[in-house]
């Protein structure tokens, strides 16, 4: 059952191989995305915030086969991925060229999804690498699909830096395996917990940290993101914004809670320092730009800082906050990109200086923008507020004053950059130019539907924070006490120390 989030996209992708008519591509693509979403809902209702479900693929007991593990954290990520990607699939129907669709846009869409879901459910380090590669390969193709020079340029940068990350990761795995002789995460946890020499693992921890750091776009490693995210079609950017960096964060949270738990003082300090720098640098950069997609791209980086901050504080509440923040971010960030796409369709540009007057002509679009924008800026009772609340509360409880202060301060930067878009694009008087040819006069409601879905999701996540909170704190607890995870995965394996 829990393998379905991987198998369904694969199956969908295979079907897409055989057809090359745009119409079938569309139908199959969207219904596949819906099936994944439905499955993920089913999974979370099974896992239910308490259990951890495990599936030993090929029927070889852990640590021998590849274990697929779904705990609350994974389940949450699956659901949100399913939801966001369904919305995006619908959005792609309207916002991706017919030509790209016949060139199997949806195939790559689904393989990307497969990689992401795989990364969320796997319990095996090398398998994680494989999923990363699936994801990366698909994203390489997506970013260059359409072969515009701009895209290719962005694509080269994106590709090289992510390849380097993969190689770091692979080297880390190699060394890790060399030392422990296992690849199963739970088994690794057992071995490393009982090993007093585990401090020697630090080098491969560092390799992992750098690999995930590049993928998650944290401070010294984030360059690839802003230099490539504004190049592909906006639906693709939105998809990336929702998923890719979050997978990096997910992986980081997973390994740093499960088996890289030695020498916490060093690592948590490092993580917090990185988090702080990421927040501020990203926020400042976002404040200084005037192209919507670039503002949003830098803004992603800033928000990643919060998630790493939660990991660095390292309490159940902080982790719950980080997860909550991730989910909120996936919803809201994606939505801002979608709205940017709508704006582009209406105005033919992403440059704030030449946009204006949208509020007057498209108030509904204004509302659709303001929901995620305010959510990101942390306006109560939208989810950004609660995310910050959890994180900062946790930060204060752990007495990390400085970094919590930075987190609070960054909120102003976020707000500033969001309001800038709002003021310039929506409030400013529209320029009195004759619209260019081919621009749309109005937006049909159905094209706005995905934004509405995501907006509704955002509001729900905020208002219902109390209802969902149990899930998040349970996820945090599960992450903090890895015993449950280990026992479930290795239930038939004698894991006596050494």
């Amino acid at each position, binding site marked *: 059952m829990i393998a379905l989030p991987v198998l369904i996209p694969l199956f969908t992708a295979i079907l897409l191989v055989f057809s090359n008519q745009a119409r079938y591509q569309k139908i199959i693509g969207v219904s596949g995305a819906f099936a994944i979403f439905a499955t993920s809902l089913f999974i979370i209702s099974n896992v239910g915030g308490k259990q951890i479900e495990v599936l030993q693929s090929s029927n070889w007991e852990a640590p021998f086969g590849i274990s697929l593990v779904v705990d609350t954290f994974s389940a949450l990520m699956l659901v949100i991925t399913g939801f966001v990607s369904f919305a995006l699939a619908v959005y792609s129907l309207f916002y991706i060229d017919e030509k790209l669709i016949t060139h199997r846009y949806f195939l790559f869409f689904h393989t990307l999804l497969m990689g992401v879901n795989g990364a969320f459910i796997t319990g095996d380090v*090398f398998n994680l690498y494989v999923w990363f590669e699936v994801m990366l390969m698909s994203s390489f*193709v997506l970013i260059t699909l359409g072969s515009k020079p701009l895209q290719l340029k962005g694509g080269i*940068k994106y590709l090289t830096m992510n390849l380097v990350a993969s*190689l770091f990761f692979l080297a880390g*795995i190699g060394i890790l*395996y060399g030392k422990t002789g296992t690849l199963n995460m739970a088994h690794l946890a057992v071995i490393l917990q009982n090993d007093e020499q585990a401090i020697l693992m630090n080098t491969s921890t560092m390799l992992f940290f750098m690999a995930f750091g590049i993928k998650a776009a944290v401070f010294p490693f984030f360059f690839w993101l802003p230099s490539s995210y504004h190049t592909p079609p906006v639906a693709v950017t939105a998809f990336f914004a929702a998923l890719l960096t979050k997978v990096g964060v997910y992986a980081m949270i997973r390994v740093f809670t499960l088996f890289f738990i030695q020498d916490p003082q060093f690592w948590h300090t490092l993580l917090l320092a990185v988090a702080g720098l990421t927040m501020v640098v990203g926020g400042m950069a976002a404040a200084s730009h005037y192209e919507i997609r670039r503002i949003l791209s830098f803004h992603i980086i800033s928000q990643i800082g919060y998630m790493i901050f939660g990991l660095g504080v390292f309490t159940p509440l902080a982790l719950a906050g980080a997860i909550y923040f991730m989910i909120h971010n996936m919803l809201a960030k994606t939505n801002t990109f979608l709205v940017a796409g709508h704006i582009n369709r209406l105005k033919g540009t992403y440059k704030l200086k030449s946009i204006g007057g949208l509020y007057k002509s498209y108030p509904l679009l204004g509302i659709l923008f303001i929901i995620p924008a305010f959510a990101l800026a942390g306006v109560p009772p939208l989810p950004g507020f609660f995310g910050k609340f959890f994180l900062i509360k946790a930060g204060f409880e752990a007495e990390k004053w400085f970094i919590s202060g930075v987190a609070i301060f960054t909120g102003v930067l976020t707000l500033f950059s969001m309001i800038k878009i709002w003021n310039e694009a929506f409030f400013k008087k529209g320029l009195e130019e004759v619209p260019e040819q081919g621009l749309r006069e109005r937006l049909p409601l159905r094209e706005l539907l995905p934004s509405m879905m995501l907006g509704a999701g955002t509001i729900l996540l905020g208002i219902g924070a109390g209802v969902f909170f149990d899930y998040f704190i349970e996820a945090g607890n599960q992450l903090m006490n890895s015993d449950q995870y280990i026992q479930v995965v290795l239930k038939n394996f004698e894991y006596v120390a050494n």
Partner: protein
Amino acid sequence: MLALLVGVLSSTGVYLLLRRSVLKLVLGIIFLSNAVNLTIFIAAGLVQGKPVFVSEDAANPADMADPIPQALILTAIVISFGLVAFTLALKYKYFSLSDTDDLDELKELEE
């Protein structure tokens, strides 16, 4: 000795990556991935002349090389083959559209 080889290979890889030519970039990637594969191979321990084939009567693991890293590297090789192929195509395309091999040309677009 082999460790040194890994070092040299990855130095070469990094050096090539830092050049301005896209083609060298691809070469750099190949070198780096070779280096990393070798790292895995060495890190898991080297055993000479004992390939892992088991027959029905004798299966003594102590006599054999470790099969897992081999499987891992195999996977990694194939994956990096795919990546390299794609990068080459990308490079080709980039060249045919922009007529340049210079990576610094990538700059202009970011302001």
